[in-house]
């Protein structure tokens, strides 16, 4: 009787994984118990130590094992520029693609009123504290070019405006190597209205 309960508990616990329903959870549970007990133990240990050891960086909110992540602690970075992104993956993409040397602030989401995600859920109070405490001269808004990303960028702009800090937004436009004919109409019209003088 108690064994059945333990299995049921495991199946129920597995369902917290994204995209895993009751059927997949049952399959995974039986696989782990029948065929891969060693793997199951490793998974359990890795999960436990990650949950205990990984926290949000006190400065940029990204996931980090130390109180302040390696990037924020790096003295070589330019402390006058702050790039605001939605997720840690976005920060990594910018790191790989550009020679940006400033710091980041990771929102871990975006303003999405219809999902009930408001300003306090994306750490904007923490951002305000940083703006007061640090010598930041420029904010680069690199939220996604979606309606929610735009709403987030606008809100942060309003938040920063009284502080006399330069606020910039990343450009949206035609992908390099793309052909205008195949670009979707709203990207093209955005690129057209945001044209630059040469």
């Amino acid at each position, binding site marked *: 009787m108690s064994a059945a309960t333990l299995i049921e508990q495991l199946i129920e616990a597995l369902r917290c994984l994204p995209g895993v329903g009751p059927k997949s959870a049952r399959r995974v549970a039986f696989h782990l118990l029948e065929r891969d007990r060693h793997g199951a133990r490793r998974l359990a240990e890795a999960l436990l130590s990650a949950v205990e050891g990984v926290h949000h960086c006190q400065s940029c909110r990204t996931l980090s094992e130390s109180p302040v992540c390696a990037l924020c602690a790096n003295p070589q970075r330019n402390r006058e520029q702050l790039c605001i992104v939605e997720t840690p993956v976005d920060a990594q993409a910018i790191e790989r693609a550009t020679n940006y040397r400033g710091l980041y602030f990771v929102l871990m989401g975006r303003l999405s009123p219809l*999902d009930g995600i*408001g300003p306090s859920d994306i750490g904007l109070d923490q951002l305000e504290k940083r703006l007061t405490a640090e010598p930041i001269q420029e904010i680069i808004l690199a939220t996604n070019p*979606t*309606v929610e990303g735009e709403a987030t960028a606008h*809100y942060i702009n309003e938040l920063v405006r*009284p502080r006399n800090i330069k606020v910039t937004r990343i450009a949206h436009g035609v992908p390099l190597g793309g052909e205008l004919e195949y670009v*979707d109409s*709203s990207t093209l019209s955005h690129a057209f209205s945001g044209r630059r003088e040469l």
Partner: protein
Amino acid sequence: MSPSHRVLLEPSVVLHHRPYRDTSVILELFTRSHGRVGAIARGVRTEKSKWAGALQSFRPLLISWSGRGELVNVNAVEDDGAALFLSGVALTCGFYVNELLLRLLERNDSHSDLFQIYWNTVTRLGQGDEPDITLRIFERHLLQELGYGLQLDRCADRGVPIEPDVRYSYEIERGPVAYNENSYGVSVLGSTLLSLARNELKNETARRESKRLMRAVLGHYLGDKPLHSRELMQRSSALITKAS
């Protein structure tokens, strides 16, 4: 009315989208002939997807779908004219309009007039028209479409025409009655009711009173759950006042 098996190039707009599994999204669409429709668009959150950019709110789209029941399958998406770029306050108001439709419309209940009103509203917001007026007109039309239309021209208790200089108590689901302090109704001037009926709202009093009236009436139909977009509107306008 359950949606037909296959619908081709239906004028639609995305009210809300949320990610589903690794590459799909679940959409809440507002369509011209089928009202609010729940749909799933598979494989759109990938680098190669043609539609990823298109499936955003406030864009006129032509969507083809198939299936029945709660969630239909999106088969094709096309642009139906230029997208509206709402930004700032207009965007927050746009979220509010979408949230009202999500909360008050039943799925698969056709409201083709409301579809046109929705576009007029969003277009006016995009042009930078006074949101307080645009939103009140939208709310009035929305209530009318839902069958909860406001009575704005006659007194509910005596049936006489509304006088501009007289104060009334607007009782929800009944209408304006002669003002008395003990009434649970919303206190409004006759001129506010009349200008709301004409979609004008020229002066400050009319705007303030109609906002309070609409909030009470909508609150009655929305229930206890707060509107998230209204909270965001209040917080952004507090920021803007602080900044100026």
